Structures are given as structure tokens and as C-alpha cells.
């Protein structure tokens, strides 16, 4: 059997050190070891985006990142970004527009959308669709998601959007 590897990761602002099986991907580590079940496992081959988390401020596929690769890095999940209030405006827009049904893709959608809002605040509707095209939703038909993001982009900046 492989040896576990020690890694120190700052997850949602809390620094923690764990001995981790190298084969464990980040999404399983967050879910199984830390009980952060908000990010979801769906395809485990990088297509669906349900496992999207933030590593050092940038969105990543949690299933295509080993937990040990996060050693020395900062990881943020939907739970932490909900508590910090960073996602609040987006979450409210998703709620009001019913931009989710089963909710399984939603944490990944929110993290991707938040990256768009930070990086590309002037995005057109077409560009929103393009940016979001790596996150699968099987319920909504996407329009409500695009509408919600567009609403946030078009609303003058308030607290909570950074």
C-alpha cells in the first residue's frame, strides 16, 4: 500500500494538517475527510463541474485535483463562501430566479459564476453562456441560471460582490 502524505491546507479559512492517501482526490477529501459535502461528485472525469471548488482563488475541478496537490494552498468551498457572504448576492439571484432545481450542480455553478463576475463583469449574455459551458445542469434548461448571473452583473455593485 502507498504511504500517506502529510499536507497542510487552508480550507475555508481554517488551516489544517492531515495525512492523506495520495490517490484521494480533493473532492473526496473535502467530502469524506472534512465532511464538507456541499461540493458534489458526479462524473469524476472532469466534464460536469459539480465538484468545482476554488484553489488559491481560482476555480478547479475537485475530481481532477489530488488532495495532496493542495498542500500549502488555500481551498474554498460553497460552505465557506456562503458563510463569508461572498456568494450572497448570487445566491439570492439564483433563488429569486429559481436557477436551480435538484441543486446538485448548484455549488459548482455558483463558484463558476462568481469567477465570471470577478474576472469578466462586462460579460454579454453569450459570454456568460460560454463561461458557464463547463458546468452541466440537467434540470433547469440553463436559462434561469444565465438570467440570474446576468441580473447580478447588471445590478450596480453592492456589498457582497467583490
Amino acid at each position, binding site marked *: 500500500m502507498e*504511504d500517506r502524505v502529510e499536507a497542510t491546507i487552508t480550507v475555508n479559512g481554517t488551516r489544517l494538517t492531515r495525512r492523506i492517501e495520495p490517490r484521494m482526490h480533493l473532492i473526496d477529501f473535502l467530502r469524506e475527510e472534512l465532511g464538507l459535502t456541499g461540493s458534489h461528485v458526479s462524473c469524476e472525469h472532469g466534464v460536469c463541474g459539480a465538484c468545482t471548488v476554488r484553489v488559491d482563488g481560482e476555480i478547479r475541478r475537485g475530481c*481532477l485535483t489530488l488532495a495532496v496537490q493542495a498542500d500549502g494552498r488555500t481551498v474554498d468551498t460553497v460552505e465557506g463562501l456562503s458563510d463569508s457572504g461572498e456568494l450572497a448576492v448570487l445566491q439570492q439571484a439564483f433563488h429569486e430566479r429559481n436557477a436551480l432545481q435538484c441543486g446538485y450542480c448548484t455549488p459548482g455553478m455558483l463558484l463558476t459564476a462568481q469567477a465570471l463576475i470577478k474576472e469578466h463583469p462586462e460579460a454579454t449574455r453569450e459570454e456568460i453562456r460560454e463561461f458557464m459551458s463547463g458546468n452541466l445542469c440537467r434540470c433547469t434548461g440553463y436559462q434561469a441560471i444565465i438570467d440570474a448571473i446576468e441580473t447580478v452583473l447588471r445590478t450596480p455593485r453592492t456589498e457582497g460582490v467583490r
Partner: protein
Amino acid sequence: MKPSAFAYARPRALEEAFALLDKHGENAKLLAGGQSLLASLNMRLAAPEILVDIGAIPGLDGIAVRGQTLVIGARTTHRAIERSEAVAKHAPLLAQAAPHIAHVAIRNAGTLGGSLAMADPAAEWPACCVALQATIVVTSKKGERRVAATDFFKDLYTTALGAGELITAVEIPCVEKGERHAFLELVRRRGDYAIVGLAARARLKGKTLSGVQLVYLGVGVTPVQAKGAMAALEGKTADDAAIRAAQDAIARDLEPNADIYTSAEAKRHLARVLVARAVAALVG
């Protein structure tokens, strides 16, 4: 769908990485961005004994201009290339191609060197590097060697990389005055691997093309230079006759393999459509 067990090493210097590759030979795999490798490990399509993570080795990423050469570190992410002003200025082909690579979360992690070493014939970077006549800088414990991109891709998922070697950088001649680039893909969904793609490059003087490079992706076991079509356009005015001649040459240039959705015949047809569109883009 969990990977089989492997050991993990995160060397802090190239020498350490070489020692690990030496020790484990074919049972070791290099881990850069991991966006293809980890998917295949999750599916247990591969089961290495050890992953050598090159993420902590200094000096492998970054984009710099040295004289007339754009140097991109092997571990530079797709996203960094996409956002780079230097790339947009000196190798616009790469800037055009980058947004076609998968999706943002994957571009944040996946690397240039990883993509080249993987050598997926449907991937964007291999075709771009061939079209740009880039040089791949390969390093081992014996030192550095430089391999022309045209010689680098040997077969399906097979490159000129030898045992104990890794890609450290890619050197690209900076775009010259009058040089035009065009990158086109036909994909059924944004971010998918292309059915057929084309990395095109030429110098344009008036409407006359020279230094024409037409490199296809998704049509063979490696990126494919359409030499007949290139010759048909070389030194020619980019008019309908030249385009038709290039399209006719495509039939001889390419021996595409069918994929699950698209026949070889359809791929060849689409390659012909793309060459016309590429010429239009180059002169447009």
C-alpha cells in the same frame, strides 16, 4: 471510480525529479496540471506506482520574450497563456486557440507542457506548436535538448520524449510583420475536443500568401501538416482557385480516422471546409 493506489512525490528541484524517474522508470508518471492524467487514473485506465508532481519545481512556468523568441514554461497553464498580453502580441495563434481548450476550471489547472507530453491528436497545443514551428525544450539529467515541434509528435499519445526526460519550455518564434494566424475548430459543444480543427499561419503581402502552415487536429494520430494544401497556397494569391486547389490537395494530405460520431469521409469534407475558412480568416 477511484484511482488505484500510488505513491506520490513532490520534488523541489529538477534533479530530484530526474532521480525519481530514474528509480521508477516506466512505473512513474509525471503530474503537471493533471487534467488528463487524473481522469484516466480515476477510470483506472492507467495505474502508475508513483506520481512525480512537478508542481513545486521552480522555474517551470512563466512567459517571457527573449529576442525574437517567445518562451513559455512547460508548467504555464492554459489560462495564463489565454490571459497573456505577450502571447496575444507575439503568438496570436495561441491566444486564439486557448479559449477552445475545455473550460475555465480546467484551463486554470492544465498546462502547456502537459498537453504536449500527452500528445492527444485532437488537442489544440500540439497542432499550434507545429504550425508555429515551435521548439520543445526537453530536459533530463544529461542536460537540455531541443526538438522541433514537427519532429516531436511521433504517434498516438507518443512523443520524442525519452525515458527520464521532461518538457521544460517551449520556444516560439515571435510573429513577424505581415504574418497572420487563424485557429478554427468544429466542435459539437463548446469546449469539447474538435471533430476537426485547423491551426493556420501565413505571411501576407498584398493578397499573396507565403510561409503557409496548415496543421490539422483531430484527423490523425498526431497533428497533421497538410503539405499538399500548404504547397497549393504557397506564393499564391488567396483567391477561389487557390482555395479550391488547397481543398483538392486535402483529399491527398489527410487520412483521417473515424471517431464514434464522425466518419473519415465527413472529417475529410470538414477539413476541406476549414481550409477555405482559414484562408478567409488569414486574409480577412
